[in-house]
């Protein structure tokens, strides 16, 4: 339960930190760190414009999207405190529940019958398919390394062995940061601030959403960042007591947000056609982690 509350807390300031980092990096003062949240609250209070082509699916999708992310967050533990629900193989459920939300948001983009949103939907479907293997192999490596098969048991036993687990954690952090960037369609895969529809992924999918729905979708993106941040923090928390782990969690989230801001400030977006190759790198890095775990355990050949 504590992790759920912490993630909600982190989701309030995360995007603000990203925006602030970007403005400082470009030499501006920038808005306060709660500005993105205020924007969302403003959207939530607004009325909507619906496309004539849309059906019930268009209204259902944003809700299903946020609900899928919330359900996924329920499974994320906080160090020694299990998530709201925890069972063997829960990370499989985690990935599939998120996929449900993605399915709904993709078909809601197609529901508008727009030529641009179909483009975004197509890219979203392809890239999320390419990202999945990295996540599963990574979790497979940790299952192999710890001998456990659920988020909570894996993370709470991760650091009983040797300090090598911190090295695995560092590599896994790299993979997870990039997974989060791709899942949220940020740089270097996609540029959310671009104003050319042809080059967008996620933003172009929600061109026709407005008011409450748009607010929900944007907040879901914040939640997703905070969720991945929480998983990353779990690589380092282990069984530390709460008075250390909670500040550590916040530090990790803050660091993650700053990293995202820095990446977005100093990297250019890849050409769309080069993105798949970039995403494949993640799978190969997680394969490396898998072999690393095999080596450490002495099971390699």
């Amino acid at each position, binding site marked *: 339960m504590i992790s759920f509350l912490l993630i909600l807390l982190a989701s309030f300031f995360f995007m603000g930190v990203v925006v602030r980092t970007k403005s400082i990096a470009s030499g501006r003062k920038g808005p306060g760190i709660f500005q993105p949240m205020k924007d969302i609250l403003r959207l939530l209070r607004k009325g909507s414009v619906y496309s004539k082509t849309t059906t019930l699916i268009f209204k259902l999708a944003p809700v299903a999207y946020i609900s899928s992310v919330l359900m996924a967050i329920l499974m994320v533990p906080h160090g020694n405190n299990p998530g709201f629900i925890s069972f063997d193989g829960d990370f499989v459920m985690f990935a599939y529940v998120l996929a449900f939300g993605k399915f709904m948001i993709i078909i809601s983009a197609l529901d508008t019958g727009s030529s641009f949103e179909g483009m975004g939907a197509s890219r979203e479907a392809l890239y999320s398919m390419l990202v999945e293997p990295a996540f599963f192999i990574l979790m497979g490596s940790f299952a192999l390394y710890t001998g456990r098969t659920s988020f909570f048991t894996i993370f709470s036993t991760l650091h009983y062995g040797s300090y090598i687990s911190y090295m695995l954690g560092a590599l896994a952090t790299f993979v997870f940061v990039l997974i989060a960037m791709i899942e949220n369609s940020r740089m270097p895969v996609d540029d959310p601030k671009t104003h050319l529809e042809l080059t967008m992924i996620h933003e172009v999918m929600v061109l026709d959403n407005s008011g409450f729905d748009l607010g929900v979708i944007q907040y879901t993106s914040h939640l997703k960042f905070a969720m991945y941040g929480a998983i990353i923090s779990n690589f380092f928390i282990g069984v530390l007591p709460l008075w250390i782990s909670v500040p550590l969690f916040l530090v990790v989230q803050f660091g993650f947000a700053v990293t995202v801001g820095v990446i977005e400030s100093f990297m250019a977006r890849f050409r*769309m056609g080069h993105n798949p190759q970039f995403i494949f790198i993640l799978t190969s890095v997680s394969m490396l982690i898998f072999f690393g775990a095999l080596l450490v355990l002495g099971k390699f050949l």
Partner: protein
Amino acid sequence: MEKSFIEFFNLIGVLAIALFPFLKTKGRGFITLGVITVQVIISSFVAFSVFTNGVVLFTYPGSFVTGQIPVRIDYLSAWFMLILNFTFLTGAWYGLHYMKKYKDQTDNLALHATAFILLYTSIIDICLFQNGLVLLVVWEIMALSSFITIIFEHQKKETLKAGINFLIQSHVCILFLTIAFMWVKVKTGSFDFTAITEYTSAEPAITGIGLFLFFFFGFAIKAGFVPFHTWLPLAHPAAPAHISGIMSGVIIKIGIYGILRMLLLIKTDMVSLGYFILAISVITGVYGVMLAIVQHNLKKLLAYHSIENIGIIGIGIGLGCLGLGYDSQILIVCGFAGALLHTLNHSLFKSLLFYCAGYVYQKTHTMDIEKMGGLIKHIPRTGYLFLIGSLAICGLPPFNGFVSEFFIYTGLFNGLQSNDFLFIMALIFSILGLVIIGGLALICFTKAFGIIFLGTSRDSEKRSFSKEKPRKFFPLYIIAITILIIGLFPVILAPALLKITHLYMPVAVIPVAPAFTEILGNLTSVGWYSLGFIALTALLYSIRHFLTSRRAHTLEPTWGCGYTGDTAKMQYTASSFIRSYRKLAGSFLMIDKEKSEASGLYPSYINQETHPGDRVENWLIDKPLHLIRRFLNRFVFLQNGNIQAYILYGFIFIGLVIMVPVIIEKIAVFYNFLNQL
């Protein structure tokens, strides 16, 4: 008692067919549904009594050709009987509504109904009889009757072509099975299935593997494992929708039944078999879904998805075999139970999808998804049922497809604790395969659902849609509800699944309870979690409704980024939706592209067409056939249309038939003479 039930089951099918000449078309339809219903009730009763009272066993004396004919109905048979029953019942029901459009074709319908009853009766009998020769005869009846049901629209050339393709491949399958049964018969002198066990446990492991491979190739053709899948994408679009649904849902599963049955009987080196099945299944799954994405014909797309799902089932079976080889009970349970459950699940959502596709076809008269769009506004029931089927086939919670995939994932992740490097690598690649299958299925079904049902129509022709009749949807609702129940309460199936998986456990081993209670606990958690997911979504939706209902909202055309004209033509099409995927996977696919370039100041119409092909089919079927035809063309002079020449061939043939034994006798005499020298 079960014996008389089984006899009555077969008798009533034959009697119903005998009634046909005395009835009108409508009466034939109802009698078919009635007979199937009675048969379903009888065989379900037998299957349930097997699950409560244990194995049913009785023997017919048979003849001197067949030997004794044992009927053994164990948990495995009963499970498959129940799956068959459900899909055949909904299929017959749906078929009655679907076939109303063709009610003028009296004779054709009568033949179709006859074949349908025969098909159902024979396919249930396959699960009962445990005698090789009888099985082959019943298998042949099944193959022929499914051939007749497929070619219902035989006036179309493609239908007939696909049907003949099916017929030939079914007989290649029978050929493999015949060789395998003959092998055992020659070695042991018995057609009884128990002889297979006796024979293989006495011989070295390599014999068992060889025998299994013959059975496997035979059953794999029926099930549609790559590279034996080529008949599926042709036969499914050709058949009427209820037959496609039944064929994809259960007829191909009889191949899975055969493989599972043989794994029970053949005693050999299970580790090698496990690796073999795992490898072929991962290839099957990934290849099936990779080709499914590029299909534009809805039924063909669904057919390739059946191949993918056979791959998933195969991964479960392979995992179970490895569990047997490495003595790991949790792998046996997760693997086989996952495979069995996925067999059931796939039969549910795939038949639902095909039935929906049938209604789409009856409204639009095409299966080309590039010509569809916006159908959910005209046929909402079909649309939302198709959505449920799509979500379930992608393996997304809270639907049933997730439960069986979760079983298999649990097994795969548990197996990682092993110390065998090869085994761990096999598992991680299976995980990789399963994940890629899941991701690609998501692309495929967002495409299928989004392009067919959402947006606006892509067809220039304006069609008028009649309203959907609610009663036509009753069987579809039943399937959808079953899908949801299995997704939410998977535990209800657990006792039956555990009973079947216990069949595979070596006799000496006592099942360890904690492992199973853990798996059951996980299933309960999955169910509660899915229920929570639905509740949360419903709650959030009602909050959204409460908050937004009083606010101002307006209806406007879709935002076209400044363009205000008609945007229907600018919509994303199915081809453009998968374009980036097609570029990425291009080297594995075979796509013929026809394209004309725009030229000049005022270019005329240009068009571009893509035809997805199948590389395996090209290498395995088309090219060899082409070579054979080229070789045989050298002898075309024999077929000269000259009646005298044909009479001469007849004489030569008869002469040879008479002469050959005589010549052989002479040679034998000469040979003996040489020996005596």
